[in-house]
């Protein structure tokens, strides 16, 4: 048992480091907690809405004496969410942590390795379970006497994520055993990234819809879907007994819950002996073997592109072939505006507002309207480009290989400009698609469309060079997993929040004070152009000295 705990402790450090957000390579003692505090604050409104909604539900079900139904419902919902999240997280703990081949030669039993990994995955799920159940349970408690946080609830909560995690682990092990493509880390990251994006968008729409659901509607929803809940209970049978134990204080029900959970864990351990080790050995980061080159192909394949173009090509290849960078740095530029427009359209469709009438009502001959559009375009250029995390992670993504930048006989200026160009290419593509999309919807005159597009471009230059400056000043070069260079890089947060603030200032000030289209266009072009030029000069002058000093 001591080996199991020692191993779990070591593997747990990986989880702790995942949560450890840092600014640059060192970061202050409180940087991580402060940043997670901000993330927590951002989630408070959603938690509050969830609490209020559930309170309304409890107001009907608790007086009716259906306590077990409510508690069972809470547990079932948590199990479902944990099942979904753990399917995403299990492969990284079980398959892509690159430690199994180190652990196997150690005097450990297979069950100890699998058990420790399961334990590590379980601790990750507790956070999610707690986040969901806390507002529901708080609402539930508000209808019960003070001090009702029972031992049964604590046991129920401890056991809650075990069953869904065991299910998802078995599902993942079967998939990994059957399909080789799942064992490719890049492919996995791409799929997981896409799922996470869709899920994120879903949460966004769900939380905006949650505001519009009344407690009465929620009660109706629950009453009308008792069958669904019964199905959930048969998938997670422990929840029925955990619910009864919490609601009615039935010790017997809790014992059955414990027995069911133990049974599920035993089943998981039994199956994993056959499924896990056979699929985890030899897992790679690479794709299928590629076609072999002949000598003739080698001769024709050698070609020259020039220093800048070649460096840019290298940047783009590494960016687009790295699923983590692609999902987080590039795709958000295209998805964020689409999500915003989609969410807006979704919300409008739920109101009585006539969308097509609204679009037709826009008077492009009104100078005030067009100057508003110009200010909006300049702000959109900055906003969309601050979603582009290509340059604000471009030094961090180099990791230990940053030294290449220092020993290659190419000036820092050329290298930095090529890196900026890779980000700029993404921004320009995003802006062109965004404005083209708006043009299809709004059918603005060509001059307005072109004016808006031109005004948005300096924002792209500005945010890309500013992002690079941030990353040059505090790059995160020490990482063992490239996801940490992108996802846990505070530089991205600084750029996003800074960009949003700047976009708001430009949009609001421009919209209020610039009253004719020409004044708006010229003034905004000069202001954003000057900011863009300034940021470029700052990078090119300060960047060299930052690179000179760089030593990790």
């Amino acid at each position, binding site marked *: 048992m001591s080996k199991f705990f020692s191993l779990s402790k070591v593997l747990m450090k990986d989880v702790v480091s995942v949560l450890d957000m840092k600014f640059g390579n060192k970061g202050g003692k409180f940087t991580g907690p402060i940043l997670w505090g901000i993330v927590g604050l951002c989630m408070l409104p959603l938690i509050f809405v969830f609490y209020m909604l559930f309170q309304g539900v409890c107001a009907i079900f608790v007086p009716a004496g259906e306590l077990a139904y409510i508690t069972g419902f809470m547990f079932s919902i948590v199990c479902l969410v944990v099942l979904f999240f753990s399917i995403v997280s299990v492969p990284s703990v079980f398959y892509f942590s690159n430690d199994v081949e180190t652990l196997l030669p150690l005097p450990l039993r297979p069950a100890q390795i699998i058990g420790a990994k399961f334990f590590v995955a379980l601790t990750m799920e507790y956070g999610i379970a707690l986040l969901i159940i806390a507002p529901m349970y708080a609402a539930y408690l508000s209808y019960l006497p003070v001090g009702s946080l029972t031992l049964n609830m604590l046991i129920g909560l401890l056991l809650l994520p075990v069953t869904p995690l065991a299910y998802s682990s078995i599902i993942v092990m079967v998939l990994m055993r059957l399909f080789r493509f799942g064992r490719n880390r890049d492919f996995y990251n791409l799929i997981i990234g896409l799922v996470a994006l869709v899920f994120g968008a879903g949460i966004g729409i769900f939380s905006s819809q949650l505001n519009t659901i009344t407690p009465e509607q929620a009660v109706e929803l629950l009453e009308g879907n008792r069958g669904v809940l019964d199905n959930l209970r048969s998938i997670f049978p422990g929840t029925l007994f955990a619910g009864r134990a919490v609601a009615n204080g039935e010790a017997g029900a809790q014992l059955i819950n414990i027995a069911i959970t133990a049974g599920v864990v035993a089943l998981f351990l039994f199956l994993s002996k056959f499924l896990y080790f056979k699929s985890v050995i030899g897992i*790679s*980061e*690479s*794709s299928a*073997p*590629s*076609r*072999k*080159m*002949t*000598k003739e*192909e*080698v*001769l024709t*394949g*050698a*070609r*020259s*592109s*020039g*220093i800048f*173009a*070649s*460096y840019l*090509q*290298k940047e783009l*290849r*590494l960016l687009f*072939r*790295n699923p983590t960078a692609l999902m987080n740095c590039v795709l958000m530029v295209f998805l964020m505006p689409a999500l915003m427009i989609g969410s807006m359209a979704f919300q409008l469709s739920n109101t009585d507002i006539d969308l097509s009438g609204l679009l037709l009502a826009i008077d492009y001959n009104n100078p005030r309207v067009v100057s508003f559009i110009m200010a909006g375009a300049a702000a959109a250029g900055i906003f969309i480009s601050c979603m582009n995390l290509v340059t604000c992670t471009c030094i961090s993504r180099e990791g*230990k*290989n940053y*030294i*290449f930048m*220092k*020993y*290659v*006989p*190419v*000036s820092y200026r050329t290298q930095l400009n090529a890196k900026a160009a890779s980000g700029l290419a993404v921004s320009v593509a995003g802006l062109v698609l965004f404005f083209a999309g708006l043009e299809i919807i709004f059918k603005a005159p060509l001059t307005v469309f072109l004016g808006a597009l031109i005004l948005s471009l300096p924002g792209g230059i500005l945010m890309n060079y500013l992002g690079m400056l941030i990353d040059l000043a505090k790059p995160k070069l020490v990482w063992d997993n490239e996801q940490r260079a992108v996802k846990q890089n505070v530089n991205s947060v600084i750029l996003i929040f800074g960009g949003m603030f700047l976009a708001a200032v430009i949009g609001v000030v421009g919209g209020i004070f610039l009253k004719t289209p020409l004044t708006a266009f010229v003034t905004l072009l000069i202001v954003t152009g000057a900011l863009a030029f300034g940021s470029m000069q700052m990078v090119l002058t300060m960047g060299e000295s930052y690179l*000179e000093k760089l*030593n990790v």
Partner: protein
Amino acid sequence: MLTLRNVSKTYGNSSVKAVDGLSLEIGGGQIVGFIGPNGAGKTTTIKMITGILNPDEGAIEIDGHDIVKNPLEAKKSFGYVPDSPDMFLRLKGMEYLNFMGDMYRVDVSVRKERIASLAETFEMTGSLNAKLQSYSHGMRQKIIIMGVLLNQPSVWILDEPMTGLDPRAAFTLKEMMRAHAKAGNTVFFSTHILEVAEKLCDRVAIINKGKIIFDGELDELKARHDQISLEEIFMEVTDGE
């Protein structure tokens, strides 16, 4: 030609110099092995030679170009093989070589012949269409060496170049190092494998605690220590320092 004059480096606020007043002059036609225990200052020295770090004191010249004052010209004169070949892993072998060819301005007609020849020498022709990510450690080491040799720089600086190479590739590289030096060029490499240094080097520089404690021909070193092996000499001179 590689010259280090009284070079020193201290990290951060440390009171200990990682490299302390180091001087070396390596002329053409020489293979110099740079050996020393862990933390002796080998990597710091190589980082300063290649421009990754700036020295606090002293000067470094490569083919007459000062690495601090005239970095681009100095960098054009050497080829550097870092200790870890895990770089640009998502590029394909051919893409990597073309990229290196562009960075070092290797003419495309010359590049074609050199890539073909190096790929054949290192038995990499069939693998150039694959991403570096799919290569073994040894193959990654080979492709990095190929990228450096593409430019045919006069000074080779190699940090633990034999690590991970199979016997055939290691033999080939050693032969290439000999041929490069024989043509009047400079080879400077660090290694922990003293047998390699013993068999390959014309000269060794032993560094310990940031200072060169021996710099000279192997025969001279052996003569001083009653003809015992380099391994035994190394143990003797670095012991208790």
